[in-house]
């Protein structure tokens, strides 16, 4: 059944909310009354049904495996949702006097302590609102550190396999981006990196484990060389799930790393947010981290905002400033801390182990029928990378395999990323999938590969067949953008 839009079923006179009658007063709007809006209203029964039906057109972790490489779609514990809704967290205002929000500051401080200890780094900025925002935060701190030294370095080195956000962030911060090539084994070419490092290089942005799902064995050497050149190491923390509890990025020489609370620490993706991207800093970058900060003074939690930081020679006096209106994603902090406390130091270590075990199990259960470009370079970390060589001559492409997976009850894997591999398929099962689920997924993929090789190209090209929609015309959407509702649907044309 097709679900109409609210504009097609609502009515401007109908409402699903009852309100007290307002007291009679003379308006003080200064004559600036609102013009007609054109908003439809629904009664509660209609709204509940509409959004329930809409929800059922989504795929989600709760429905099946979500093997989306580099995005870590793991189970979202329901305890975390319950905790985030405690009125003591959900119903406090960011500008309340700090004495009235000591528990909230304690929570932020507790989570900060965990993040610093797990990464082995001395400082963390909690306020960034998402991973990309965290990257920005890290790069701004790096730029502020260079400025403080009076240096105007212009270049940021980024490996070929970097996340798309990395160059975007560097460019946004005013840097020129230069790529560093990869070795045939899928790692950063250390020699090439060393050769390029120099007085114009501000930072190296690296992802480790990298986007091929491999750990950079030269990571310490990379950091040492970078530091020797007067530059800083920014690490993309998107893949922290592979090593949390087993490796501390601080021990690898990282200067700044954002942590996607919605990846490693399981705050829900929610269909595209909200995320949270705290950034840990080395001692070298700590003084430049953004405001605000929570500071624990024995029995009391203080909130360091503009006045304290700039007023009195504080540790944060050289902060590069404020990135968001308030204190960051409190709701996500509660969920992440709930997740972290539930696992503990032992459980988080187990998370990394099971995530890596699951990925290697998928890799070794499929590498005979699919092609794993780095399959011979040893174990992968938390994700298994395949390319499309095994599809040569079948007419079936990576995207066709992905769309065919939808019909089998799975979300597609990450496709065509990383760019260093042709027709990449990046599979991250995560630690919250059972062996039985993986066995079923493996069998499904083997079956699809067999069908592709058997010449059933038409089946793949037309997939998905069983989803709420067949393939959608993205070109039409971009060529004639319809970005808000108009009574005449383009589908009716």
């Amino acid at each position: 059944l097709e679900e109409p839009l609210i504009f097609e079923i609502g009515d401007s006179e109908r409402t699903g909310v009852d309100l007290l009658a307002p007291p009679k007063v003379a308006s003080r709007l200064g004559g600036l009354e609102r013009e007609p809006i054109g908003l439809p209203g629904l009664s509660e029964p209609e709204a509940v049904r509409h959004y329930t039906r809409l929800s059922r057109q989504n795929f989600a972790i709760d429905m099946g495996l979500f093997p989306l490489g580099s995005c870590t779609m793991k189970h979202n514990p329901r305890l975390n949702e319950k905790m985030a809704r405690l009125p003591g967290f959900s119903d406090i205002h960011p500008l309340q006097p700090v004495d009235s929000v000591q528990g909230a500051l304690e929570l932020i401080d507790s989570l900060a302590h965990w993040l610093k200890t797990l990464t082995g780094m001395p400082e963390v900025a909690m306020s960034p609102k998402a991973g990309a925002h965290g990257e920005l935060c890290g790069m701004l701190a790096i730029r502020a550190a260079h400025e403080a030294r009076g240096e105007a370095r212009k270049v940021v080195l980024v490996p070929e396999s970097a996340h798309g956000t990395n160059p975007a962030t560097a460019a946004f911060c005013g840097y020129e981006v230069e790529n560093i090539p990869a070795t045939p084994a899928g790692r950063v070419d250390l020699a090439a990196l060393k050769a390029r490092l120099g007085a114009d290089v501000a930072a190296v942005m690296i992802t480790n484990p990298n986007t091929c799902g491999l750990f950079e064995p030269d990571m310490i050497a990379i950091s040492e060389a970078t530091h020797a050149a007067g530059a800083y190491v920014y690490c993309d923390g998107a893949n922290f799930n592979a090593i949390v509890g087993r490796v501390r990025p601080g021990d690898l020489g990282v200067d700044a790393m954002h942590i996607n609370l919605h990846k490693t620490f399981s705050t829900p993706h929610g269909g595209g947010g909200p995320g949270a991207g705290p950034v840990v800093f080395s001692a070298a970058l700590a003084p430049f981290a953004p405001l605000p900060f929570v500071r624990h003074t024995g029995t009391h939690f203080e909130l360091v905002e503009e006045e304290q930081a700039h007023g009195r020679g504080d540790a944060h006096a050289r902060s590069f400033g404020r990135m968001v209106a308030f204190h960051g994603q409190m709701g996500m902090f509660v969920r992440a801390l709930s997740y972290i406390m539930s696992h503990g130091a032992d459980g988080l270590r187990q998370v990394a182990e099971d995530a890596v075990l699951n990925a290697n199990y998928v890799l070794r259960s499929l590498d005979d029928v699919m092609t794993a470009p780095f399959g011979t370079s040893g174990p992968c970390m938390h994700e298994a990378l395949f390319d499309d060589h095994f599809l040569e001559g079948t007419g079936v492409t990576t995207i066709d395999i992905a769309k065919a997976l939808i019909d089998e009850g799975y979300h597609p894997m990450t496709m065509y990323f990383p760019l260093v591999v042709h027709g990449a398929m990046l599979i991250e099962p995560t630690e919250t999938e059972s062996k039985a689920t993986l066995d079923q997924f493996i069998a499904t993929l083997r079956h699809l590969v067999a069908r592709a090789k058997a010449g059933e190209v038409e089946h793949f090209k037309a997939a998905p067949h069983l989803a709420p929609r067949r393939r959608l015309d993205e070109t039409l959407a971009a060529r004639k953008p319809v970005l808000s509702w108009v009574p005449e649907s383009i589908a009716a044309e």
Partner: protein
Amino acid sequence: MRYLPLTADDRAAMLGRIGAPSVDDLFRDVPAAARLSGPVEGLPLHMSEMEVERALSAMARKNLTATHVPFFLGCGAYKHHVPASVDHLIQRGEFLTSYTPYQPEIAQGTLQYLFEFQTQVARLTGMDVANASMYDGSTACVEAIFMARRVTRRAKALLSAGLHPHYVSVAKTLTHFTDDEVVASVPVLNEGAPGDDIAALIAAIDDETSCVVVQNPNLFGHVADLSELAARCHEKGALLIAVVTEAVAFGAVRSPGAMGADIVVGEGQSIGGGLSFGGPYLGLFACNHKHVRQMPGRLCGETVDAEGRRGFVLTLSTREQHIRREKATSNICTNSGLISLAFTIHMSLLGEKGLRDLAALNHARAVQVAERLAAIPGVDLLNGPFFNEFTLRLSVEARPAIRRMADAGVLGGVALGRLYPGEASLANGVVVAVTETQTDEDIDRLVAAYEEAVSC
């Protein structure tokens, strides 16, 4: 380890297929110096659900919560009543645990509500189109400044003194690194129009100006007509960016679009969202058709599927970082998905009638409270026109007074000293917000608290 399905038997069998002697072996690429031999030291081990619940509840109980005390804070974050069905629906696993809708065939639920959201926001702001949301109002605001630079190819932004000081801070932080120029000044508590500097802004616009950023209602609650400012901007080739931090105002105050704004940004937390100590919130971003390709953030558009059925996709993504890498319009790669869903559902429940009634109720109660407070000797109401928030000047310094009220269990407003710590001229000022949520008893207690505050 209640979230980990593998049993010891499973792990052994899997290592067997992999051909690895142990899990440790899978980590062999990690330099030996960085390999930890056991759990990270100095941290507790795993806890039962009940223990976690106890520990976090203990923290939560240490906070004074808005539902339990008379509560009158605003300044960019507002307490409104959200229908129970909103939270019920956003917790459905299909919404909560879904991903960014890059696979539209199995994400029509998310995409359709984003399309509804975009349309609602466009209509509320009086603009043609809106994006699928930004992190919050402050980041939406600075993105608007950058967008104005892309559109006008100029780099000087004039910020109204009535703009939320945190928004000013965020803009200053980021523009410092992008070499934009941001001009901002300290607000003045003009009688009748606190924080209003529209005439000064009009005078300051020059041929270098990319945009003027003005909040309406402004931080002090003042409501202004932006039409003349808009006209002057357009005359000079600059864009007018209007900022709205209280989305309920859209139900009562003439829309920025109707007053000529080119970009409208705002904080959508008031509808569907909670206070949540400042986040996650919801950045609103709207503009007109002609500028849509310079817009930051995700956009959802209508299209058709292979069978000709209406469907929705993320579109114009060539503007975005995951495609454009260093050429993207911004580095943003997340929106506030679930918060925008809450907004959409709450707004659908309200509808035009509900939103107008809600806004009318907010305004009327705010007028009542303002008049009662203004009657206290030692308390001056500075506002002429306002919506649901207004500024008082006390006979005493406001920040300690507000702290004392909180100690006594009344959250009486936001002292301007909290937001402008260095500014002696603002030290006696306090901003009070009134919504539909305060009871008559709450208001009586507020009035009594102010009476006491100015009497000592």
